[in-house]
């Protein structure tokens, strides 16, 4: 490495000089009579520096700086020297040093501003790099006022700079919630470390570095060794291992840099170039033994005699994005896209991705996320806050268009160059190269941890208890209770097929008086409960939209006082051919007129018919066995007709209802069984069961 450059690094980083003095001390012999030798050395250094300074190129300014630093160490308070050093720093990799030197010089500018004629221009840039955008805008505007109308290019440049500063202000108002951490000495060195690429699972990292152990050992005009590729690995939740040179055949005696990595980490795109004008993208793969094979050119459709410097593969490795400064683009380097041709086994013709992404300025450092739609890239155009900023854009496969590039924000982006941004598969982490104050030297590789939206803490609420229940006294003293003649009826209503509980409507009617005892809706679990007077008989029916009717009777005796009786009901949806029984349509004995209030179930049937307009039914009347067969047959027919009439009177079309009488011919409890019953009540209940109306679904 060039010793002067090393010296520059050491002195600059070793320097902790600050400008505490408020006085300009020119390099005048009279001021340094007590150290003539030092003065002589310093002035010689300035002269040497001036030779390079006047040339003006970046590398010349770097050389100038090496000399100026020597003079500065002798006399730190020369405004003239500080001014030149500030300008040199601005063009160096240590831009953040520029501001203090320029500010010092600025203090001693003449009133007409002619001593340091362009200090506004330089100090504005220094402020911008320092993140002091407001001050930068002021100085840029002040400088702009000194420009003539003919300085169009310069005015354009200044306007862009002002715009960048405004972007900087805007982005810093809403910074991204991230941690930005230097990857530490296992990865970074005092030499340039940049261009990180990672596998999708964030386990393998490749990057470029210009270290003394580079393969070939040669250096270029910057004084740094040629670029080589290094790699590191980590375990799940572990730290990165010490980086190692990937070695030949990937690294050569020339520049070899990382460009892109397939998501699985097994195919590596590299850059190979001798100079800045010509460079090509190569590819190498890892064989089964884990060795990297000889790189090969990815083809003439990609590589040209111009500068191809960055590339990225899609997850399926069928799409390639790359950067080139070949003619025909929108300006400087542009982003191109190519598709893999399976037939020809090569990359197809490359196309410029277009002006949504590409600008008249530089576009560099592409990365295509494994989500197959998001492209990250760096650009000096679009809304940048200075230098290259990282943007992202999403591809809409339906429209074939890219979304407007979005600056990924501060503090990831800085006013300096931010390039080579790659994101892990889960989007939790990203890696990029940047110059930061906490770096080890030149560019370093940083890991960004995305924290996502701000997590708001929870406040514990104060108990809302508003009443004085805890001061309420219990009921008064109880005396011995009277016995109550009540019985608890409980049960469950379920779907007869699925056995799922139903929140069905339930009616309970006193069979004798036809008075309604209760109307309720079953619970979510289908259960219900009601308290009734002991010693009476009740008719219980249930229905629910989408179902027919379930109907039962229950008789309670005095022995049932204080007890729970269970009645379970099953509901079925109307189905052609299926029947359900209505037990609680009461007629007077030997009468075909409906008993007063005996219409609860008929009302339910009316609702079912209205809810199912296609339903056609048959009402079949049945009697008990008391009376003659013939008589009971006629009676049962008449009762079915009466029931039909009720339905018709309540809006049901007569042609939807057929009637039939069965008399006593089809009892539910036959005569023999009734004869065997012991009590009168039991027999009466049995007769009651035989007195029923069966509803049969003819069609739906």
């Amino acid at each position, binding site marked *: 490495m060039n010793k002067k450059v090393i010296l520059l690094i050491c002195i600059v980083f070793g320097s902790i000089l600050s400008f505490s003095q408020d006085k300009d001390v020119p390099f005048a012999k009279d001021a340094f009579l007590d150290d003539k030798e030092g003065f002589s050395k310093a002035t010689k250094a300035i002269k040497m520096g001036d030779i390079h300074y006047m040339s003006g190129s970046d590398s010349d300014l770097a050389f100038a700086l090496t000399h100026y630093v020597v003079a500065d160490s002798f006399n730190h308070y020369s405004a003239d020297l500080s001014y030149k050093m500030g300008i040199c720093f601005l063009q160096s990799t240590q831009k953040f040093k520029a501001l203090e030197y320029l500010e010092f010089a600025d203090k001693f500018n003449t009133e007409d501003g002619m001593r340091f004629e362009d200090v506004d221009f330089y100090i504005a840039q220094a402020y911008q790099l320092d993140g002091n955008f407001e001050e930068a805008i002021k100085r840029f505007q002040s400088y702009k006022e000194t420009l003539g109308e003919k300085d169009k290019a310069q005015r354009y440049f200044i306007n862009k700079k002002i715009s960048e500063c405004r972007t900087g202000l805007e982005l810093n108002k809403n910074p991204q919630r991230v941690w930005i951490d230097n990857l530490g000495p296992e990865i970074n060195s005092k030499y340039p470390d940049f261009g990180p690429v990672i596998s999708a699972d964030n386990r393998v990292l490749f990057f470029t570095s210009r270290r003394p152990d580079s393969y070939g050992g040669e250096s270029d005009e910057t004084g740094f060794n040629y670029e080589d590729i290094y790699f590191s690995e980590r375990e799940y939740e572990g730290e990165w291992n010490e980086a190692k040179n990937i070695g030949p055949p990937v690294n050569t005696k020339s520049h070899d840099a990382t460009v892109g990595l397939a998501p699985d980490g097994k195919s590596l795109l590299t850059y190979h170039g001798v100079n800045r004008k010509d460079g090509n993208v190569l590819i190498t793969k890892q064989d089964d033994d884990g060795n990297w094979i000889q790189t090969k050119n990815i083809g003439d459709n990609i590589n040209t005699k111009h500068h191809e410097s960055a590339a990225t593969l899609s997850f399926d490795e069928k799409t390639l994005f790359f950067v080139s400064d070949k003619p025909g683009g929108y300006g400087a380097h542009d982003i191109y896209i190519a598709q893999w041709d399976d037939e020809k086994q090569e990359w197809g013709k490359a196309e410029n991705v277009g002006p949504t992404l590409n600008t008249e300025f530089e576009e560099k450092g592409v990365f295509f996320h494994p989500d197959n739609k998001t492209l990250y890239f760096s650009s000096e155009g679009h809304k940048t806050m200075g230098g290259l900023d990282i943007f992202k854009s999403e591809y809409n496969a339906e429209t074939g268009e890219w979304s407007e590039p979005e600056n990924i924000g501060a503090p990831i982006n800085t006013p300096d160059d931010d390039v080579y941004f790659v994101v892990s598969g889960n989007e939790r982490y990203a890696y990029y190269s940047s110059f930061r104050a906490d770096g080890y030297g030149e560019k370093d590789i940083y890991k960004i941890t995305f*924290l996502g939206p701000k997590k708001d803490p929870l*406040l514990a609420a104060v108990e809302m208890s508003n009443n004085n*229940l805890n001061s309420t006294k219990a009921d008064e*003293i109880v005396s011995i209770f*009277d016995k109550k003649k009540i019985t608890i009826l409980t049960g469950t209503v379920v779907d007869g097929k699925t056995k799922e509980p139903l929140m069905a409507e339930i009616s309970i009617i006193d069979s004798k008086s036809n008075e309604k*005892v209760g109307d*309720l809706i079953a619970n979510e679990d289908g259960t219900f*409960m009601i308290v009734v007077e002991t010693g009476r008989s009740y008719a219980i029916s249930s229905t629910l939209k989408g179902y027919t009717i379930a109907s039962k009777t229950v008789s309670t005796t005095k022995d049932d006082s204080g007890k729970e009786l269970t009645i379970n009901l099953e509901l079925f949806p109307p189905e052609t051919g299926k029947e359900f029984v209505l037990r609680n349509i009461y007629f007077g004995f030997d009468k075909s007129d409906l008993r007063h209030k005996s219409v609860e179930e008929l009302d339910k049937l009316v609702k079912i018919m209205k809810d199912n307009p296609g339903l056609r039914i048959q009402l079949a009347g049945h009697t008990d066995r008391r009376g003659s067969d013939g008589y009971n047959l006629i009676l049962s027919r008449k009762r079915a007709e009466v029931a039909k009439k009720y339905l018709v009177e309540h809006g049901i079309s007569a042609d939807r209802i057929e009637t039939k009488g069965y008399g006593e011919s089809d009892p539910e409890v036959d005569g023999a069984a009734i004869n065997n019953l012991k009590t009168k009540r039991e027999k009466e209940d049995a007769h009651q069961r035989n007195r029923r109306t069966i509803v049969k679904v003819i069609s739906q």
Partner: protein
Amino acid sequence: MKKILLMVFLLPLLVIGQRNYPLAAKKIFKQAQEEHKKGKTQEALTLYNSCIKAEPTFSEAYLNMAIIQYNNKEYTKSLTNSKKALKYNKVQSSIYSQIGKSFFMTGDYDSSAYYLDRAIIFGANSENDFYYLASAENKRHNHERAISQINKSIKSNTSNADYYMVRGDANFGLDDFEAAKVDYEKALSLNQNNNSIYKSLANVYIKLGNSEKAIENIDIGINNAQGDEKINFLILKGNYYHQIGDLENAQKYFDEAFALNNQSAIVLTNQAAVLIDKGEFENAVEKCTQAINVDPTQTEAYFNRGIANEMLRKTDEACSDWEEAFIMGAVKAEEYLNSPTCNE
């Protein structure tokens, strides 16, 4: 326990005489009642116990013991004896009512609602029963049912401020803040000495966006209240300021509450919340840990400590805290547990 929507038209229940207990037991019971009426509850308890020894199925004795214990705020004991009463008499509404109230005071609102519902089925219809049931339903977030029950209490008695408070809470729970405001104001008109009303009014004014009235009511509460009640008002004020982003005032009032009680898990948790928003994560962790030590069920303390730990880069601790918070019911914690923070 599920609610029953019920419209019961009970027939008059025929009575066929008192329950048959041995004469000796009845005699002791009567003596116990006498002592009970005089307010000599210890003596009454002793006699009720003797009564039970003489006749183990004497449900009324169990119930009266439960009543004494309830009035002594011995709710668990009251519950035990109420259940014993039920064992021997399953159709008495007052027994179900007593069980329901005891469950309420022990915080088991589901059971409370279940038994109070049963009390009503068996004929309980006092405004007090509906009041308890409505309160239990509010606790269970069945606010519509709470309103239907408390309306029965209000119908019986339009002068009880607590009834309007319960209905106000139900309306608040249904996000009908205007209706809640009306109820709370009615309650206030009936009883200006209940500080809880000011708290409720403050909350509803916050919801209605009337910060001036909210603060006014909180300040009345702060001035009137003492002890824990005062602390609650200070917390309320701090919460309000935190909600509007005024961290300085939020911290001020939480600190005032802390000065009155440095062992309040709620105060500690909310102080931590402010510290998190100010970026003082180490201090926030400390406060949360103190809160958890005081009350290991303080969900928000775990949640907040998770946030602070994450910002301190203690990812494992953060995820562990969010897991605890999630188990305790913090819905947002699940999102954080599923985030890349806890799932690399």
